[in-house]
């Protein structure tokens, strides 16, 4: 049911590429706004981790990937999922506990996976996806598939043992893996200043022999260029790269966050570094898209989200029958 129309390549390489990058960033923004709205209206339960303000990172990274390349994602994973090409209706349907949702209502926001687009799954466990991406990289190498595995994770996840063990494995086996760290300055309430004794998190790779780059994570062009280089390295058998994308989450960590650990001014300051107007000004400056064309892209993203929400709301709820049969895949099936 998914119609995947991913367009690989530099966001400034053509009109199509520019509007594609813009569309995906807007889709993420508007998706997150829709989730917040559904939550506010009591239509969605559980919790939510919104990635508003961080749209350029997954978009830039995924513009450098093939459909067959794989990703692992996080609790804040809607953006990764969308950037890799997921179907918006099935995503919203999952959040609403519907049968047609990506996980049939069993996983929710933190567990969306999409085999078709190479998304091995979001994760409720901080750092949980990192070794899994390394495993996907190992399989790619052993099977000579030529695919790359990207693990998205937050700054906070870099302090989990899982990151360290996984990084070393990827390095010694020269696996086609990219460790994509979205440094949004906080792991819940804990600032990177408090949680790290180094300044650049990309330097964490040094001890493992993994090159690291730090980029402006709110500039989709910069993110793409780093991603493209890392993908090339990975495909050439040169091993893993760490990309640290500096960004910021505008919203609280989850719905229970009172934002006591940061100032309003800081949040406002980062709102001025919004990745969307940022890219738009570049595109306008380069004359790649006109304001009318930009508005049309925004409208397109809006329409897609509205359509997805409407379809998902109408869809049938997931039912408890059959849960016991869902635990194991049938042997031989």
């Amino acid at each position, binding site marked *: 049911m998914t119609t995947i129309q991913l367009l690989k390549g530099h966001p400034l390489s053509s009109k199509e590429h520019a509007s594609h990058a813009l569309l995906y960033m807007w889709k993420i923004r508007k998706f997150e706004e829709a989730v917040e709205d559904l939550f506010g209206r009591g239509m969605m339960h559980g919790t939510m981790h919104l990635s508003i303000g961080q749209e350029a990172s997954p978009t830039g990274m995924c513009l450098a990937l093939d459909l067959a390349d794989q990703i692992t994602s996080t609790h804040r994973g809607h953006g990764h999922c969308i950037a890799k090409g997921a179907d918006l209706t099935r995503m919203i349907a999952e959040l609403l506990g519907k049968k047609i949702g990506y996980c049939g209502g069993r996983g929710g926001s933190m567990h969306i996976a999409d085999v078709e687009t190479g998304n091995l799954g979001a994760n409720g466990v901080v750092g949980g996806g990192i070794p899994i991406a390394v495993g996907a990289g190992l399989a790619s190498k052993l099977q000579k598939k030529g695919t790359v595995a990207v693990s998205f994770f937050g700054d906070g996840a870099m302090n989990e043992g899982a990151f360290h063990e996984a990084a070393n494995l990827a390095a010694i086996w020269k696996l086609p893996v990219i460790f994509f760290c979205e440094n949004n300055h906080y792991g819940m309430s804990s600032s990177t200043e408090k949680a790290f004794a180094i300044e650049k998190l990309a330097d964490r790779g040094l001890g493992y022999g993994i090159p690291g780059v730090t980029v402006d994570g709110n500039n989709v062009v910069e993110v793409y260029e780093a991603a493209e280089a890392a993908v090339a390295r990975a495909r050439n058998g040169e091993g893993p790269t760490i990309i640290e994308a500096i960004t910021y989450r505008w919203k609280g960590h989850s719905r229970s966050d009172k934002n006591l650990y940061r100032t309003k001014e800081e949040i406002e300051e980062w709102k001025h570094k919004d990745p969307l107007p940022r890219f738009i000004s570049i595109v306008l400056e380069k004359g790649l898209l006109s304001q009318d064309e930009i508005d049309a892209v925004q409208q397109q993203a809006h329409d897609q989200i509205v359509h997805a929400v409407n379809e998902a709301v109408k869809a049938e709820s997931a039912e*408890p029958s059959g849960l016991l049969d869902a635990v194991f895949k049938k042997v031989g099936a």
Partner: protein
Amino acid sequence: MADTTNRMLTMAEAVREAMTIAMNEREDVFLMGEDVGIYGGAFGVSSEMQNKFGADRIIDTPISELGIVGAAVGAALAGMRPIVEIQFSDFTAQAMDQIANQAAKIHFMLGGALHVPLVLRTPQGSGTGAAAQHSQVLETWFANIPGLKVVVPSNPADAKGLLLSAIDDPNPVIFLEHKLLYKIPGRDAVPEGVERIPLGVSKVLRHGSDLTIVATGIMVNKSYEVAEKLSAEGINITLIDPRTISPLDMDPIHESVQQTGRLLVVQEGPSHGGFINEVIARVSESASFGSLIAPIKRLAGMNIPIPYAPQLERAAVPQIEDIEVAAREIVKNWR
């Protein structure tokens, strides 16, 4: 001592009060965990405590469960009394080496040379829509590891008294708080002062001659409602909350089963290999078995990961209606 202040605290408030008392009483007690400082912990349990005790005693940590539990073990060996908060019990998995292979075994394995006075507090349970990796009830895991004491408070008053004892205890104690109980006041007032409740003593919440229910954690509350409701129908239930599932105090359970002849055990976690099976086994291998006039009935979570959608999540664990049906059936069918 009877409480006169009528302090209806929530579980979060009661736990905070116990930690505050312990930290005022002893210099060697400190709290460490992810976001326990200014954020007050993911569920607000340590809210405002950093203001009171400072960042050296209410220590915010990076997201490093294995590291922080290990550091707590080390600090405990070196003369401190750490309380560690793991943000969700599911993430004790990250720290399991330090819990199961280190903390639990050090005293025994080293011939008693060292001991580990450590409390690991962590929220467990479903009902919040947080899905499979944030909703487990893992009390059974810990109860299966000799060397750990395992506390599962079902109400604020018990939580306070039990936590005070846990902090005093010279051994590692796993203290499992149910998320859904954090924000609701308990049935009973929480005593104002320092009243410790010893670990390893089951509590009989109500007496009745028709059926014995043994339940853990939030299932105690659900069973209580059922017992109250059924008493109006003339079905009289004894409800027992073991409170510490390891060590396990079976005395009141045997005593009650010998009177009622009927036993229903209830837990939230999956039935397969679950803690309640231990209760059943101990009844079965004792003289109480001879008093049974009905087959023992078990209610537990389905043997599935906790699903996300509310309608699925509800179906995965025992609800009040399930307990009611089971209780009524045992009593009606076995006379």
